[in-house]
């Protein structure tokens, strides 16, 4: 594991940049545990202070320090993204592997459901869920809803990998050796599916974070819990752009763009590592 990481850092520039960016943002988010003030408190500081030596990124119209708000916000946003990713991986792996291994009628049934889910527009459904839940909408509920909507593409991908494993020699050996279906899936096939899971997880994480930013920018989440989208929501509520409080909006946007860039570079370099063809083309073959 560490050897792979070292090699990637040494030979893959995209991975190195992505790794450093993501690590820096993670450490910045981690710092919120040592914040000098609670992240939900408002009107603690003089409002609308531009960036200065005392307040590096300025303060908001609600009397909060933009720097510490951002630190908590990125943490909460990443926590949401990771929860969605882990939950939706469980669905995707279960459906994809079962569908691919069992084949036949089961495969047809599961994939019909899967394709139907793909064709449903996510955002209107999420907005409807928020609308009917209103104040009872907490971030774990939102994460579960997003996970239920975000597994279907990847289930198809995992299915296609399992489908090709089904007819391989070792699967037949395992069946003749008396292994049960769950045993075969977990002990024999899962290791082959792992790279796909990992790659789709990166993409899913990016998707989930984007979803969180989008929903909280509109105010459709717990608005008192700091998140990146939530900061932009409050800045819009206070007309920060018109009032000239640019630092309230600019720093969250820069942070979120850097976060996406870091994760995206990680995702493509991991994909390149997993897919040997693109490694060959890098070597000039």
């Amino acid at each position, binding site marked *: 594991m560490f050897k792979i990481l070292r090699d990637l850092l040494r030979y893959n520039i995209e991975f190195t940049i992505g790794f450093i960016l993501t690590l820096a943002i993670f450490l910045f988010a981690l710092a919120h545990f040592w914040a000098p003030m609670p992240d939900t408190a408002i009107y603690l500081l003089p409002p609308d202070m531009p960036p200065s030596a005392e307040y590096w990124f300025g303060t908001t119209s609600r009397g909060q320090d933009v720097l510490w708000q951002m630190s908590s916000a990125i943490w909460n946003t990443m926590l949401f993204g990771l929860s969605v990713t882990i939950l939706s991986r469980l669905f995707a792996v279960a459906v994809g592997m079962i569908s691919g291994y069992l084949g036949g009628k089961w495969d047809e049934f599961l994939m019909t459901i899967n394709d*139907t889910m*793909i*064709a*449903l527009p996510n955002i209107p*459904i999420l907005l*409807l869920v928020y609308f*009917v839940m209103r104040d009872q909408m907490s971030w774990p509920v939102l994460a579960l809803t997003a996970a239920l909507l975000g597994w279907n593409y990847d289930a198809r991908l995992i299915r296609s990998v399992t489908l090709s494993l089904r007819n391989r020699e070792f699967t037949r050996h395992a069946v003749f050796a008396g292994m049960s279906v769950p045993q075969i899936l977990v002990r024999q096939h899962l290791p082959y599916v792992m790279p796909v899971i990992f790659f789709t997880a990166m993409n899913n994480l*990016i998707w989930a974070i984007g979803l969180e*930013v*989008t929903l909280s920018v509109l105010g459709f989440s717990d608005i008192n819990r700091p998140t990146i989208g939530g900061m932009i929501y409050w800045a819009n509520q206070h007309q920060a752009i018109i009032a000239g409080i640019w630092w309230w909006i600019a720093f969250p946007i820069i942070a979120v763009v850097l976060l996406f860039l870091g994760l995206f570079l990680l995702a493509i370099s991991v994909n390149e590592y997993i897919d040997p063809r693109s490694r060959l083309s890098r070597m000039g073959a």
Partner: protein
Amino acid sequence: MDGFAKYLVRRFFQFFLVIFLGVSLAFLITNLSPVDPVEQSVSLMTSFGATDPRSVELMRSALEELYGLQGTMLDQYLSFWGRVLRGDFGPSLSAFPTPVMSLIMGALPWTIGLLTLALIITWSLGNLLGALAGYYRSNVLLKLSGAAVMALHPVPAYIIGLVLLLAFGFIWPVLPISGGAQMNLQPGFTFEYIRSLILHGTLPALTLVLVGIGSWFISMRSLVSNIVTDDHVVYAELGGVNSSKIFSQYVARNALLPQLTGLALSLGNVFGGAVITEFLFNYPGVGRLLIQGIYRGDYSLVLGVTTMSIISVAVAVFIIDLLYPLIDPRVRLG
């Protein structure tokens, strides 16, 4: 049965299944939630002052009837289907007494226009650039444009739109940032009105293009770079077919098939981006209608827009599926 008919039947089945499950899902979400829409609407209306308890009671039963919340769950489900089929979602509460359906029908052309235009530009430009980048792998200009669109692709629509809005609305104010056309112009086929339409649509469309183009670029580039190593391409190269013909006839044409399937699969997501973009630029489409409905607590409007957007996306996917056999002869021949 020949291949084409088989394909049609399958697609038709899938189309109905999407609508059936989507509409049922919308019903289930609204019915299984712990929040009662009637109570919500009542509290919204009584929050402006004291109201006679008797009239509140009347209002409650009127709303229950309006929302089809009387009888058992099955009755409600069937009556919901009845209303969907009739296209009757009742009057909007925030724009009383305009029916929800006429609000949606007024907004739908804007969304369809914006989305169709943005999708055509995104899909063709993304695939063209991606195919060129996959075929001419050492071209520096293509590599740079690829890096640019790929870096933009994971950023959510709202952020890209907001940056464009700040750039072209505040820092360098050259484009209108709100609405679908100039307010005081009479809609019609006049030069003024069409010019205003195009100017107002530029930023929302640009947002959607910038958000969407990267994923087409990435998938097309990897498809093309795989096809380039295929035997038939190598054979054509050895046979001396000129490279522009190899590119268009041997490589790009084959790579376009999965991209068309991808277009159908991506429509749901693209629609989500359009909802956000419309709201940001105050564009008079269904997305803005939906978000306004949520802010105003307008139950029938939100349910109506959600249901209609599920159905419209399904119809659009079905239309693309119907185009597919025209391009892929294997489907026709079975």
